[in-house]
């Protein structure tokens, strides 16, 4: 159902997460909320280290949803969705990329501020 590919690269401390969408009635949901975008106010983002960062951040992960099962955490910054860049998109473009009706699986490339520590800990 949901897999957790934990492929880490030493240089960039990024994580690839594969989320299988869950069908609820007519909609395919992923189970998290996003905030941010180049048309938004970056100063209000509680998760970013640099308050001028206009990237897409995960603001909420619903309990037991596909995203949580796949290993997404709140505060993650989404860098790519299925190969599409998400660092310089508007909020609406990000939403559209994530909710394409003809895709069942989305492969995200995320980065997390304390991912370096997590990697080190898991290596020891």
């Amino acid at each position, binding site marked *: 159902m949901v897999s957790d590919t934990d492929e880490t690269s030493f240089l960039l401390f990024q994580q690839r997460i594969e989320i299988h969408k869950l069908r609820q009635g007519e909609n395919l949901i992923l189970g*998290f*909320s*996003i905030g941010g975008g180049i048309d938004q106010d970056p100063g209000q983002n509680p998760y970013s280290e640099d308050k001028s960062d206009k990237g897409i951040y995960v603001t909420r992960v619903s309990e037991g949803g596909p995203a949580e099962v796949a290993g997404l955490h709140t505060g993650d910054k989404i860098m790519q969705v299925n190969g599409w860049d998400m660092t310089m998109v508007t909020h609406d473009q990000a*939403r559209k990329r994530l909710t394409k009706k003809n895709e069942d699986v989305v492969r995200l490339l995320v980065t997390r501020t304390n991912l370096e520590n997590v990697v080190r800990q898991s290596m020891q």
Partner: protein
Amino acid sequence: RDRRDRHRSKSRDGSRGDKSVTIQAPGDPLLDNESTRGDERDDNWGETTTVVTGTSEHSVSNEDLSRIAKDVDESAAPDCRRYLGPALSGALGLFAFLTPVAFLLLPQLLWRDDLDPCGTPCEGLYVSLAFKLLVLLIASWALFLRPPRAALPRVFVFRSLLMVLVFLFVASYWLFYGVRVLEPRERDYRGIVEYAASLVDALLFIQYLAIVLLEIRQIQPAFSVKVVRTTDGASKFYNVGHLSIQRAAVWILEQYYSDFPVYNPALLNLPKSILSKKMSGFKVYSLGEENSTNNSTGQSRAMIAAAARRRDNSHNEYYYEEAEMDRRVRKRKARLVVAVEEAFTHIKRLQAEDQKNPREVMDPREAAQAIFASMARAMQKYLRTTRQQPFHSMEGILQHLQFCISHDMTPKAFLERYLTPGPTVQYHKDNTAGRQWTLVSEEPVTSALREGVVFALKRLDFSLVVTARRIPFLQVREEFVDPKSHKFVMRLQSETSV
């Protein structure tokens, strides 16, 4: 702090040693750290203690030096050559002015009876002629009858061009007049009057040309010049128009006298105690090599490199010396300000209602002398610390105090003259003797300013280096902003669940 004190005591010892040694070679720089030679001056005012100075009969005091400099200045006395050019142009102008009048009068005087009678049209021409001559006279007085600003090394090209033009004009008119009117005794007087009127018109147009060439052309700024004083690096930027190099030099000098702080030779050098440490390097001996000319540059370069590589703390010394100097100046300044403020509280202006209790009434000079004594010592100490004592004598300070009192100035206004070094023009009392400047230039000084022209204005002990750059051409575009287009929204912070 210990290290700093040690350094300071070390440098103090060095300079104290300098002060107590008596013999100095003539021509040595005469002002070291604490210049006690100022006490040699006759007006030893404010200083009640005697100080042992370190001079012998071989040394040159500061006063002698300033006297010598003044002699050189005054030797540039107003000589007749300064007035030759204006006198010549004045004579030419007068000649040109009187020519139309002569044209009118000569037939009347010589062959009046033969002339055709000329009624109303001639009188109309007389009136217009009179007014045009009046305008010519007033304009010449306003523009050209001014004392010359400067004596330039080369001939002023535009002015000589115009003089030649006027001379040719008037000469050709006289020639024509002589041949066609005087010889055959022309009888048509109206034609003669019209001829004189045309000459006056032509003179007015030449005057217009003169105004445009001499006065107006240089008003529009075209070059930005940078003026740097070589001794202390004081620099300024000015905008000048199209001028020749010598005219630009005159204009720049006029700005220099009121913009640049006065040149103070005492403020220039690093104290000897700091520099002497650098100089004590090692000597290089060449053993028996006669033709070692090509080796000498290599040797000196090696010496300089070695000296640079050696670890020295002279920058440290300099830093602490500067900090100490700042502190000293500020302390003296504080004492001076307090003394002057307190002195000014002792006098006040006589009001009308004070007449009833008679006190001793003083004029400004006496009032100044009365309060001067309490601030004299603080003033002298401050001036000596900031090395300004050559510029202000006791008499000068008294006069300034008298001036400030009579104009109801506050102590701060009185002190403004001494706390900051003013422009040069403030310190020169007599402006009748000329100031000698030498224009040093690689290009002929009558050529016009161009991009990249560099010239220097030299004086005895410093010079001003002037660089000219063209002012860039400006592309000004227009952008229309509709006043209704200023609208604002709050920034978004959306959160979407997917």
